[in-house]
């Protein structure tokens, strides 16, 4: 999992750890002596990298720890980041073994770029960090199904998806976001500390009374110890977010529609090996690309949208129900009693959430 420091020309792969269970990687990374290693390479799916990133940010020395270069070799069922890295290299899309080969080559070039991370606040879970996507609605549901029966490189669409299209439903809720100001587009601010004049920025969880009815297995966030005065919270401050019970600042946009088919926030290019959901994303652009589809879309139009998304052409479609915005933060408050929210493709607690992007917080080996 790491290359020992020493001669940069000859990194030696010394320590290889096999992960045995959920949260194992997170624990390892939290306790590891990072000064010994040049990089951490994950050979698995996006889920393992998620644990590593959250482990790094849970350390007291998080600010330096999160600068450890991270590499990924696709080996799991979710290979969206690997596919994104391959996409950034400019090569045409490849899958399964070819993707693995491509990522291997890119890894050997050892070029490191900064990577945006998005901090995500849920109702009652501790804050977590995301590197890929947030999803609610049709897309989140499809994530879960596909993980169960897809074999490496297979497409997302199955007869099951079509059956679900037959009983297409809407999800009710409120969506708001902080749009990227035009003058900021080319020069988004780098990750920085909060200005002192603002209200206390939120860093940990809020209280909320929304009930969750779904019985799907939810990723258990590592439980935080009771908040004593001696433990300093780790990780960057979220200067753009206010607690959920406070009204939004005036520069936020509130989406007028309340019926959604899907809401998708992306910060890498690929949602899956074969879904180029955000072709313009780069790892360190400092934006969240927010997509949402409002209720009322016909089955045909939604089907066409997904087909176009495989090739990254959905933005060129004239679908009136698809809206796209570049944002820096967002707040989602679902009101449907049942639903699924995924972060980086994994199910999390269903309920209100807020997210803010931290530009260039982590380091990614992209070749």
């Amino acid at each position: 999992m790491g290359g020992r420091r020493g001669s940069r020309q000859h990194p030696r792969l010394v320590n290889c750890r096999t992960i045995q269970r959920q949260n194992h990687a997170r624990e390892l990374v939290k306790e590891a002596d990072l000064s010994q290693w040049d990089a951490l390479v994950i050979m698995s799916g996006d889920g393992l990298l998620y644990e590593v990133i959250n482990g790094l940010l849970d350390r007291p020395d998080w600010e330096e720890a999160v600068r450890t270069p991270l590499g990924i070799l696709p080996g799991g069922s979710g290979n969206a980041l690997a596919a994104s890295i391959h996409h950034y290299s400019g090569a045409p899309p490849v899958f399964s073994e070819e993707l693995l080969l491509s990522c291997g080559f890119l890894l050997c070039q050892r070029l490191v770029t900064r990577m945006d991370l998005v901090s995500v606040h849920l109702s009652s879970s501790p804050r977590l960090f995301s590197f890929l996507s947030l999803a609610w609605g049709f897309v989140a549901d499809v994530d879960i199904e596909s993980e169960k029966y897809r074999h490496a490189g297979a497409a997302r669409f199955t007869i099951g998806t079509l059956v679900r299209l037959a009983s297409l439903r809407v999800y009710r809720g409120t969506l708001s976001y902080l749009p990227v100001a035009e003058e900021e587009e080319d020069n988004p601010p780098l990750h920085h500390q909060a200005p002192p004049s603002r209200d206390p920025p939120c860093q940990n969880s809020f209280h909320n009374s929304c009930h969750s009815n779904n019985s799907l297995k939810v990723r258990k966030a590592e439980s935080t110890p009771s908040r004593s005065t001696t433990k300093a919270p780790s990780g960057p401050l979220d200067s753009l977010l206010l607690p959920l019970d406070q009204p939004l600042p005036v520069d936020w946009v509130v989406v007028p529609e309340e019926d959604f088919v899907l809401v998708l926030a992306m910060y890498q290019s690929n949602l899956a090996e074969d879904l180029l959901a955000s072709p313009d994303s780069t790892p360190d652009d400092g934006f969240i690309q927010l997509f949402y589809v409002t209720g009322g879309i016909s089955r045909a139009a939604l089907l066409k949208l997904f087909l176009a998304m495989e090739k990254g052409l959905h933005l060129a479609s004239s679908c009136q129900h698809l809206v796209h915005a570049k944002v820096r933060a967002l707040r989602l408050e679902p009101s449907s009693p049942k639903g699924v929210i995924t972060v980086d493709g994994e199910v999390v607690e269903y309920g209100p959430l807020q997210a803010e992007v931290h530009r260039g917080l982590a380091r990614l080996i992209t070749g």
Partner: protein
Amino acid sequence: MGTTASQLGKDMLSEYQELTFLTKQEILLAHKRFTELLTKDEKDLPNNRVPMERILTLPELKSNPFRKRICNVFSTSEYKDGGLTFEDFLDLLSAFSDSATLEIKSHYAFRIFDFDDDGTLDCGDLEKLVNCLTGETDDTRLTPEEMRQLINNILEESDIDKDGTVNLSEFQHVISRSPDFVSSFKIVL
């Protein structure tokens, strides 16, 4: 055995309960709704077969994209015209009920999607399946390229023996892992 429209005997009710996944209340309600579809003259005749056009006026079927195939699959009519007797109707409701098993539902789903009734789902069947979902007017149907892309995706995912078609076991294999399938495949009066 037949049933006249005017009454549903206790014996028949018990028998139907045993033969289907439906509860007593569901069977009685089905009987009521079926009878409403009959004309005054038809009501006194035993073993009525209601033509498909009239079955399709039921609100629970009217907007179902596969309504015609559903009638055809459950119809025992020798003319293959999709007309349903009361017992056909009960079989239909039973397969789509809350209590029907995944195996029953997936079996019937397969038959419904098998438009040419040849026992496998080939490209022709899949194309018709998609067209049922999208509608067949020019502005809603998929382009030939989109259709090809979609069918390739489906076969890639479901056609395990790579013979270009999806047979019943491949279909059931794929469907069984779809958590939403059972709740999508439901018609309740």
